[in-house]
């Protein structure tokens, strides 16, 4: 056996050991200035032989670490190779095969005492006071090992990692995640990219208002020219939604239960499955005007009235095999839309009763838009990108955009909600403005109908910005610009418009495929030496040969860097 082991050792030596006789340890790999090794060639860029860049071809692994799922794959692929959840079944001891036991599968698991809804299924939460970082490390390590061994199937070459993380990640969390990737996965370097920017990239945009409806919270990020300019959050997101769904199912299931019998409580998995399979959201805002002006009590009546339109009420039969005895719940299809209503929009509650952290989504988006500078708002409002797991709920995107449109129509872009005694005067001004606008529009329409064929719609950016007078030279310039420059609809602004995105992971895959380097690039050795503290304090490092064309968030081309920064995460 020893001889064969010797033979193997040769293989390992070629794999990156510098000295044959002495057995290097991991720590040596990290930092030993003494150990003899080929010095890092600082490629003098002027005199190096051409084509040298091909040899240093870097291969990436693209990862997105969310609070409930890890997505991983290779650049250039449209979808991740694997999406791995963090369920309790994934956290069993090795050799504990009880999840394959058919009997165990039919049992409903109870929530452990003191545990929040779905806590077992989370990787992390941003509230670090209740988070066991050691456990997070263990979980992530196991999942990454599974991803690498079962799905990536890589050869032993070290791969760089492109990691999509939400901005504003707490530093202890980040440092733990990076520690796992550097330590267990042996990544030579990790590039961090912020997920809203990647969602923007995956939508084909440069600026957008990214609404990420995730698990623990909804984040609204204004992105302008690949740079985060504003952020707003609300806890109305997936967790609240699935808890509402569980409440609804419990209510329906307990209707037939005898008063003396124990109450049925659906498990997290069941609620989640119902939500992803048949959950939906009403796509029309109901009685929107009313909810704004008469906050509380009038709307339910209206809703009931509207719900009663469909005569044979469509129902859905949902099987509950884990119930004892197994049962099938027949539930009205319309009521499956209620959780989304209650969790995400909360039309029953007056606006002044919400705390700052639990604004309904449409108000959150509206406020985020309102706090953006006017120019940025013009661009962002017609590039609303809704992403995140919950956004797959059918009807939700339509609903959010419709709600927003109604709100903007009603309130305009005025941060003042109540003018008090000055209200009457303001009304008058508004009316005046509206009349003026209408007048102008009529004039404009007249002109258009005279000058152009109605079949051939005019190309100008938007009717509001069209100048009434046409200067021939301006026209010519515009023609030239149009011929050589981008098509006009790349500059749409001023209207509420939703744009679909492929998601942050696909964005990261695109960025990696195009070999665009991020600002935040962390080298393994530097991280292992200093951790996150090694980052320089400036938020933006000037990467010298970099051109700003892709914007600062995603810069292209950069050589060796002396110092590294944490960018938005600093």
């Amino acid at each position, binding site marked *: 056996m020893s001889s064969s*082991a010797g033979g193997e050792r040769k293989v*390992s030596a070629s794999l990156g050991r510098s000295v044959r006789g002495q*057995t290097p*340890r991991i720590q040596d790999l990290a930092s030993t200035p003494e150990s003899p090794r080929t010095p890092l060639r600082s490629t003098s860029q002027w005199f190096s032989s*051409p*084509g040298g*860049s091909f040899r240093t071809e870097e291969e990436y692994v693209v990862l997105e670490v969310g609070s409930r799922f890890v997505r991983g794959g290779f650049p250039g692929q*449209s*979808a*991740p*190779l694997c*999406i791995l*959840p963090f369920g309790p079944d994934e956290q069993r001891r090795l*050799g*504990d*095969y*009880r999840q394959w036991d058919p009997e165990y599968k039919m049992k409903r698991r109870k929530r452990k005492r003191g545990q929040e809804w779905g806590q077992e299924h989370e990787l992390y939460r941003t509230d670090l006071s*209740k988070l*066991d*970082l050691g*456990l997070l490390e*263990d*979980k992530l*390590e*196991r999942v990454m090992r599974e991803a690498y061994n079962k*799905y990536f*199937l890589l*050869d032993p070459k070290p791969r760089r990692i492109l990691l999509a993380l939400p901005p504003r990640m707490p530093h202890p969390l980040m440092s733990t995640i990076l520690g796992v990737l550097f330590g*267990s996965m*042996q990544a030579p370097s990790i590039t961090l990219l912020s997920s809203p920017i990647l969602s923007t990239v995956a*939508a*084909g945009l*440069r600026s957008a208002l990214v609404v990420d409806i995730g698990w623990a919270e909804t984040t609204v990020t204004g992105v302008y*020219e690949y740079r985060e300019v504003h952020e707003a959050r609300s806890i109305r997101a997936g967790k609240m939604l699935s808890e509402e769904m569980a409440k609804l199912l419990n209510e329906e299931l307990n209707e037939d239960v005898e008063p003396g019998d124990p109450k049925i409580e659906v498990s997290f998995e069941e609620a*989640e499955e119902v939500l992803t*399979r*048949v959950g939906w959201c009403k*796509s029309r805002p109901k009685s929107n005007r009313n909810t704004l002006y008469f906050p509380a009590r009038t709307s339910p009546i209206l809703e009931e009235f509207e719900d009663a339109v469909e005569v044979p009420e*469509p129902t859905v039969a949902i099987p509950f095999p884990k119930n004892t005895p197994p049962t099938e719940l027949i539930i009205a*299809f319309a009521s499956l839309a209620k959780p989304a209503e209650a969790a995400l929009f909360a039309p029953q509650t007056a606006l002044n009763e919400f705390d700052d952290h639990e604004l309904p989504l449409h108000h959150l988006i509206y406020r985020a838009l309102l706090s953006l500078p006017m120019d940025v708002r013009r661009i962002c409002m017609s590039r*609303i990108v809704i992403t995140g797991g919950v956004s797959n709920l*059918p*009807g939700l*995107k*339509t609903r959010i955009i419709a709600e927003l449109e109604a709100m903007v129509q009603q309130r305009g872009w005025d941060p003042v909600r109540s003018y008090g005694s000055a209200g009457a005067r303001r009304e008058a001004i508004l009316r005046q403005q509206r009349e003026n606008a209408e007048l102008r529009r009529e004039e404009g329409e007249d002109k258009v109908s005279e000058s152009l064929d109605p079949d051939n719609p005019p190309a100008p950016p938007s009717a509001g910005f069209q100048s009434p007078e046409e200067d021939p030279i301006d026209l010519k310039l515009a023609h030239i610009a149009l*011929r050589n*420059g*981008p*098509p*006009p*609809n*790349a500059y749409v602004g001023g209207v509420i418009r939703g*744009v*679909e995105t*492929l998601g942050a992971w696909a964005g990261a*895959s*695109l960025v990696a495929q*195009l070999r665009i380097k991020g600002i935040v690039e962390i080298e393994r050795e530097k991280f292992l030496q200093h951790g996150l503290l090694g980052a320089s304090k400036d938020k933006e490092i000037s990467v010298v040969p970099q051109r700003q*064309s*892709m914007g600062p968030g995603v810069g292209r081309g950069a050589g060796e860097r002396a110092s590294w920064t944490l960018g938005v995460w600093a």
Partner: protein
Amino acid sequence: MAQPFPYTYYSCDCYDSKVAAAPTKHASQGIPPAEDEDERDFDPRSPGANYSLYPLEHLLYCEDCQQIRCPRCVVEETLNWYCPSCLFEVPSSVVKTDGNRCTRNCYNCPVCSSPAVVTTLEDPFDPSSSGGPWLLLCTYCKWTSLEIGIEFEKHTGITAQLARLGNGGRTIPSHKEREKERERRLELDKHKSRDILSGSEDSPTTDKRDDGPPSHDDIYANLSAFYKSQLAAQQPSNPFSPHDINFSSPSSFSRIMNLYSSSTSKKQKREKPTPMREAASPLEGLTLHSPSTDTAIIDRLKTSGWSRTLSPAQKLAQMTPTVRFTSDLRPLASILCTKRGKRCRSCRHILSKPESKITSTRYKIKLLARNHIPRLSLRALHTSTSASASATAAAAAILPFNYDSLRPGLPIHFLLHISNPLFDPVRVTLATPSLTPGRVHTRVTILCPQFDVGANTDVWDDALSGSTDTAAGGLKRFSASGEGGAGRGTEGSGGAVEAGKIWERGRNWTSVVLEVVPGKDGKA
């Protein structure tokens, strides 16, 4: 549970070292900071313990570090790739381009994930020349590819055929065709916009082939092509960029020409590059949100109900993450497996290495912990058997001990059996917390905490040289309990549970008695 109740887990050392290195990490658990020693205590009930406890069979042993190595403290390296279904080795060069999946005929059922087979749909009374249309059939749940409207012409090359077949039988254009089509339409769009500008009305009408909303893959391909074209348009703007020095590239060529031409007087100011623009049309990857798709999905949900939707597991297994209905399912090509060697993480010695032949399950190197670490096992001791007659003993042996009905307050004896795989005798010192942690405080006492376990010598050596009484007796007892199976005390040990004395001893094993007093539920 798959493991019967009295099981033994081994805690890998890497847990301790991690905790010692970073004591703050586990301290954030909410446990009040106790004394140093207490904090270091391994708590098997903590959720983190699930990641450091292993059955002995799963552990490897590094002979150089003299430590057990759990899956966390080994580095794995792939030796070769193969399909688990057809056992064909896949060369490493094509693994990645195939998307880590088998490109032969190995498919799994998208509903129940069991292997699907290719069967014929041929009409026996009207046989076709090729053997008739073929389909994929799941042998477990009877799902067929007909449910998604897919039939195959040949029974080989399913992957190639499937790539051209969309759900419902329509043909998907290949990647190249799609690219060409995109180029053509982009050109057309450009012409059209120019025509609008110049005012000419006779723009050629495009053949508006509306095939629904573009797929996830199409959007991605469009976006990727768009970004590539945008970056390429910018490339020559900076000929001095040190990163694309390449003498065959036009940029370096123009730079060299510039150096030698006399046009240096006309020093051009380097232009600021125009910012890359956004995607403006669906062909460039821009997809506007349309409410009609949402309402279509809701209507479909309303009519088709629960059974047509996909469970979370089925959804995760699909290649495109956006599927929702059973009609969107695609058969899953089986994911390749790898043979991997394992190295110790700290000294890089090889711990296990399989033979490279796919069909062989043997190992070239395999350093198992069970060959180096004493095996511990625990079972209940039937005290009644030793006292009563042999007939009832046999009956009791048949009747298994019910571990689920331990009564609080009643002491029960357990037998801890330690066997030694090493060729040297081992001295064992056991320790246990007197009260188990957790909700139910159970009192555990080891009656004989210190003892020796004999070496794992050759059985025949022992038998031949066995002259002393104790060795012979031990051997006898060893064989007796080996046949009997149940942990009954034999006559040799007298049958009495005594503190400070081992219960039984064999050639390379010793068993001692534990006294366990189950505690009451802390709440009750």
